[in-house]
């Protein structure tokens, strides 16, 4: 019995080995197309019909088998590539991938052309065109070709400027060298300022909503149209504060931060101002209460009725004692008369508030 079991185990193990070896080779009708630069394998074989229909474990199993087969083919191709050891003899084996042939679409949108700077606008107006400048300039003093700017530039040697003439209308005490240095610094600063301004203008222009979506086409979705409507509303002289809203358009409260972040009052701000604001809020809330509260008026009237009824009941009993049954007063303490009187009282009150 033990021998039979051992044989069974060995047979199972051999079966498994054969299975493993079999699974490396994959049979396909059409060869796959490979783009090893992108680690891409394209399978143009029609998938088994059961893998397309419906859902279920059978479909999952088929799809899994398909994926495994294709991955196996890709892996075997990758192993065929020329490989080398990275980082010396003991490093990992690295395959050298060929150039990718499959053109992938752009990940990000193409860059927008930046708006022209002030100089560019002026030059376009005037028709000034760029003149190509030579990179080397003839330096008369050094009698050689020197570069236009940079190391050993033509005319840039500071030792050469040993004389600075006092111009005609200037103050004789003024230091000319200092003046020249100061002016250069100012020019550099102005240039930098203009460059930053141009950059800011370009950045601002890029982030604003471009004009094209403002014209309605038939293919815009709701969010885009809502955004465009908001931009159109705000594009008035008073920034949309007095624009009438359509019947079903929801009222949007203006956010000073432009919809970015909630801002709160400072923690220890002006406490007196805060107090006065709260008192004003209380006054507003108090003033909205209705002047005449119908239920309370009714309750008050009922109370009065009951009080009168109680008083008269007491009086009636004492009176009866004196005069007897002749002077029985018509039922003033009944519920009916009280209700009738309350209704009579209520109507003018209701009419008063209605009118």
């Amino acid at each position: 019995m033990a021998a039979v079991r051992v044989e069974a185990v060995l047979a199972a193990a051999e079966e498994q080995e054969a299975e493993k070896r079999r699974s490396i080779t994959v049979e396909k009708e059409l060869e796959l197309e490979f783009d090893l630069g992108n680690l891409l394998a394209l399978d143009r074989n029609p998938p088994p019909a059961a893998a397309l229909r419906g859902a279920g474990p059978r479909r999952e199993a088929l799809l899994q088998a398909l994926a495994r087969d294709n991955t196996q083919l890709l892996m075997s191709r990758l192993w065929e590539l020329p490989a080398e050891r990275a980082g010396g003899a003991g490093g990992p084996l690295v395959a050298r991938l060929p150039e990718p042939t499959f053109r992938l679409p752009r990940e990000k949108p193409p860059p927008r052309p930046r708006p022209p700077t002030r100089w560019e606008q002026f030059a376009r107006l005037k028709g000034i065109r760029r003149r190509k400048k030579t990179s080397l300039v003839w330096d008369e003093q050094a009698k050689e070709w020197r570069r236009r700017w940079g190391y050993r530039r033509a005319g840039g040697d500071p030792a050469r400027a040993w004389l600075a003439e006092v111009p005609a209308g200037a103050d004789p005490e003024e230091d000319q060298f200092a003046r020249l240095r100061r002016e250069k610094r100012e020019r550099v600063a102005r240039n930098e300022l203009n460059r930053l301004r141009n950059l800011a203008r370009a950045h601002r222009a890029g982030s604003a909503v471009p004009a094209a979506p403002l014209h309605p086409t038939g293919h815009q979705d709701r969010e885009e149209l809502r955004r465009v409507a908001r931009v159109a509303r705000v594009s008035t002289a008073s920034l949309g504060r007095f624009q009438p809203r359509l019947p079903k358009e929801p009222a949007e409260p203006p956010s000073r931060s432009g919809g970015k972040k909630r801002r709160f009052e400072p923690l220890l701000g002006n406490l007196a101002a805060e107090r006065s604001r709260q008192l004003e809020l209380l006054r507003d809330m108090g003033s909205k209460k209705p002047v005449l509260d119908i239920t309370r008026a009714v309750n008050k009237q009922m109370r009065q009725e009951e009080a009168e009824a109680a008083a008269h009941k007491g009086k009636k009993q004492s009176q009866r004692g004196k005069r007897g049954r002749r002077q029985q007063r018509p039922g003033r303490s009944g519920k009916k008369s009280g209700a009738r009187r309350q209704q009579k009282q209520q109507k003018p009150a209701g009419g008063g508030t209605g009118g």
Partner: protein
Amino acid sequence: MRPLTEAETRAVFEKLGKYIGENIQLLVDRPDGTYCFRLHRDRVYYLSEKLLKLAASVPRDSLIAPGTCFGKFTKSQKFRLSVTALDFLAPYAKYKVWVKPGSEQSFLYGNHVLKSGLGRITENTAQYQGVVVYSMADIPLGFGVAAKSTQECRKVDPLAIVVFHQADVGEYVRNEDTLT
């Protein structure tokens, strides 16, 4: 910690107004100092200016409770008044309910007040009006909402609820770990 926004202040004042009416002015505008409301972790606190300045120097994570907690804003931004505000509601309460000694304990355990436990009630209390509940010795026990107006209270049967329980001082023991 931050001041309350306009909407939050309105919600708080409306809730407080149900119990103390226009006496909120006395809380906002006090002769003995500047007091203000501040929001810290969704709870509304009432504190003096001096305490505010001290609390402002405590880091937000370490700060547990600046001043007196009046209540908290729930997740859907509704304001819920808590029992810790009782000290400020009781002196200014407009509508009061006195509870008989026998059913004090029941109220302090969180039950509603029945007609049989009702001692006195302020005249012309409307239905669903906020009321402050006292014991017969004029000790504030908590607050609630009147289930019946004063008129109806007189006519209703003894086991009917007359005041819905909202908060009581027994919560200091029951909900010790959640109160701030």
